[in-house]
């Protein structure tokens, strides 16, 4: 039955792909139409109304000819790689993002690059888009204009994401002029994230932690920074599935579950770091005792020992769930 169901799903998937392809032949459907353009932002990004576009030659020949950023950008996906002649996509040039430059050209004409450096910089600021003053949404809109049209993968939920709502923009993490490739490098991501999330940086110095500080894991192993449908931007729909990416053996389903506590791994674990072993939020004995009275107590040694002086998981070692009954006549003790 399952195989048949999977086959049906696969056929459905192929059907959708075919429908999308056929739909793609209808030219009107190629356009990513905004629902009511945001005029305020559009005006901000338009630049000076009195200026005209003059082309990259003026920037590249004049001053930025030998700049690495010019070469990097030219070689990037947005530069020659996808230029119109080969792909139908636009070449993104300097003025696409910085605004029309004719008035800048007029303002710096005759100025000496070394002697008048400050005046040239001021002219750039006065005549091109001033990124320092743009609201976050407008900054991101510069990129989103193409990346919506291009059906970029992981930004399905960008506009509603926590980052977008807090003025974090595309260029906060993908510096546009850093190189030909704008992918955030995996081993640099954690440092990037902790530039803002400085509280988490301290947690990763606690004794029990995931190896983020050691550079063996990255924030994006668990979180989707572009936003998604899941709580806390987790990569999977639940905590159990997110943690289960690596700790699959603990995800079940099992015959003997730990009620629904394992659905939320954070009921017991502090994934960014903890004082306690196994990233537990509290010492294991105290943690378990919050819900469980545990074994019957008495004033004898065993009463005391079994309740306060034993790591509960030394005996209940399958605390995340088990398929095996216990040794006693009652099964679900999560002991083996």
């Amino acid at each position, binding site marked *: 039955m399952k195989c048949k169901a999977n086959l049906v*799903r696969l056929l459905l998937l192929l059907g959708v*792909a075919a429908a*999308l392809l056929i*739909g793609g*032949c209808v030219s009107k*459907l190629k356009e990513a139409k905004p*629902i009511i353009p*945001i005029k*305020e932002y559009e005006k901000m990004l338009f630049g000076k109304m009195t200026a005209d*576009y003059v082309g*990259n030659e003026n920037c590249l020949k004049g001053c930025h000819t030998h700049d*690495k950023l010019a*070469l990097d950008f030219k070689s990037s996906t947005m530069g020659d790689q996808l230029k*119109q002649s*080969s792909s*139908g*996509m636009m070449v993104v*040039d300097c003025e696409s993002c910085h605004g029309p430059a004719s008035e800048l050209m007029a303002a710096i004409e005759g100025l000496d690059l070394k002697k008048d450096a400050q005046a040239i910089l001021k002219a750039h600021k006065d005549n091109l888009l001033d990124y320092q003053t743009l*609201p976050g*949404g407008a900054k991101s*809109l510069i990129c989103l204009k*193409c990346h*919506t049209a291009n*059906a970029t*993968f992981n930004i*399905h*939920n960008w506009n*509603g994401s926590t980052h977008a*709502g*807090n*003025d974090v923009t595309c260029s906060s993490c993908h510096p546009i002029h850093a*190189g*030909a490739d704008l992918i955030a490098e*995996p*081993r640099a991501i954690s440092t990037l994230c902790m530039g803002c999330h400085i509280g988490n940086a301290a947690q990763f110095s606690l*004794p029990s932690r995931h*190896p983020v500080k050691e550079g063996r894991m990255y924030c994006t192993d668990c979180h989707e920074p572009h936003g998604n*449908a899941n709580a806390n931007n987790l990569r999977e*729909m639940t905590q159990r599935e997110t943690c289960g*990416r690596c700790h699959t053996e603990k995800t*079940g*389903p099992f*015959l*003997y579950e730990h009620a*629904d506590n394992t*659905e939320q791994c954070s009921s017991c674990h502090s994934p960014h770091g903890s*004082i306690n*072993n196994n990233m537990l*939020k509290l*010492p294991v004995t*105290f943690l378990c005792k*919050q819900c469980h009275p545990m074994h019957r107590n008495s004033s004898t040694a*065993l009463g*005391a020992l079994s309740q306060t002086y034993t*790591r509960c998981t030394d*005996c209940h*070692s399958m605390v995340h769930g088990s398929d095996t009954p216990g*040794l006693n006549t009652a*099964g679900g003790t999560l002991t*083996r």
Partner: protein
Amino acid sequence: MKKLTLLFTTFALLGPNGAKNCMADYKDMANQVSTVANFWIGGSLNDTSSSTNNSLAEDNALTEAAGRVGSNKASEYYALKSSGSGGVLLTGAPAPSRYHLEFDYYNDNDWFGDLRYSYKDYLQLRLLPRRLTHNLDNLTLFDFAPTLATTGSTDVRDRGVEDYRLRIDIDEYRLRLKTPNYPLHVYTNGEVIRKKGVRQARFLGGDGQRGTTGIAPGQVRASMAREVDQETQTMIVGTNAHLGPLEFDVSHKERKFESDLPTPTFDYRYITATTNTVFTRDLHAIPELKATSNTLKVHTSHTGRIFASATYSELEKTNESSHAEAETSFGYGEISWLPVAYLSIGAKVRHQKNEASAPATISWIDRTNTSRTEVLRPAVESQTDTAIITARYSLIPKSNLNLQYTRQVKDVEGKSAVDWGRPQKTAKDVYELGFTNWAIPRLRATMKLAHISNGHDYGNASASYEPVSIDPEHTSQGTLGLTVLLSPRLSLFANGFVSKEESTDNRLVGGHVDGRAKVLNQQGMMSLNFALNEKFSISPSYSYMSWEQERDIVWETSTGSEVVDSGFTSKQEAQILALALSAKPTKRLNINAAVDFTITEGDYNPTSPIQLGTLSFLAASAAEFSRTDTKEWNVRLDSEYDLGRGWGLGLDLRYVDWEDTSTDNPSGGIYYGGLFKVSKKLFY
């Protein structure tokens, strides 16, 4: 079609004024970015000295302390191998291709790779192989009342074992194909995660008989080494495209988990006052798991004043070993509206439904060699609905006031609630107020206040499993972050977090016992960044974290009645002192160094007289047993020297000194790591 796409994107990017000049052809700019080839070769040295601090155990003649190896905590995530090392980084963008080939090999338990190739926007291939090491705990089972004949015993079968560690491979791939001139993608992503090694298994190696006066003699805690060889395979196949106002993504995912090793067995002991039976049974069976999910995502253009997205996903999981099954369906929708540039209003809804099924009964042979059959409780079935309303108001440009209200209702299916002692309904209200300022020169401030309240409807209770819940009724949280540029060379970062939880009617076991709880969590961090000049900067920082609580808990007396231990307290603290240095004493030399010193301490204290450690036979009081006391020095030094003509020397050093003097888990050790590199950079 091609012309229309061109026209649209031209207009969208540049507007009508720019259309005539937008297609620069760069005829006289023949140079592409240089292809970079960077090679390095060298060697890595890794060593550790593990030691245990068994002072308390030894002082109290706890024999388990003898011959103990302890955990390799100092080198927890470092591969303890010395080896030749090397790496390569090749990047280039010869239109219409782009490639980035990066691979660093440190030793055969530690490597990283990021291999990317793209052809125009038609094909994108990325491979991300990664191998890391996790040195695992090696804990000793102490008998804290060895002088009493009636106490539990231990069965330690892994004495002297030094190498508890896993080698973990995380190999990811991503392949995307796109149709020319139209953004229809077909993609497949996936990964294989393989864990291999040896870990400690601690478990109940046998037990005594539950009697009216407590547990009879013979509760045996056991430990032994266990091999691990597990693999998780995940593959996603999907397609993504936009159809005018809407973009779609449909994907199918398969995940499979299996262990390549047979289930281990153990000769359990069952001891009563008159018998001592030994019987062999398996333990810690690792099941074979499969999961399948289908996801549909739809969203509108990100460039509009109104934005909406929806996601629907269904997940089916099967335990192939025991035939337990679980199904989760998940729906999400959001809409945001920007009526004016300074105001954004949004709403989100999320729905999750968990269903489960399992065989009705299970049969097994118990410790007395008797066949048993038990009726199984199916796992908890529940439904959680969440609604979120948000508003963002920009008081002045670059200053935001965020308001958010969240209502979450979890309904546990009636029978599940009764079977598992869960509240039938839990409603959570979250009120959040946030403020961010990027507008004031030299000051960036963030502030967030949140209040969370929980309410429960416990519904019908069963005599066996009465409802239990320790969710706090009220939680208040505050966060404040400041970044201040005190001078062009000096900046200050400060961050504080306080969370206070209060409960007066926690349902503890028994269902009719109402417990109180107060929890206070605090975190503060302050860092200075001082640039002495262009060649030297220094950043000292201090972090403090504490977790403090006072909570009623329940003991069960020998006759089975509950006694509330009122005001059981716990406090844990961590302090982290860090110093980072960056120096460029000459044009050719770069040095980065960092030192972290982390100290933690804490304990918990029951108030019940029978738990206070007043019993003379105990080796340690409750406070002593529960004590946390660790110190960790973590030192890193990375340096590079440019020899000229693309040649370079690199030296990375690591030093970790770990000490844990707690009673429960004493360990200590030092880790030394070094990586020496000779590198050559080539440009073509």
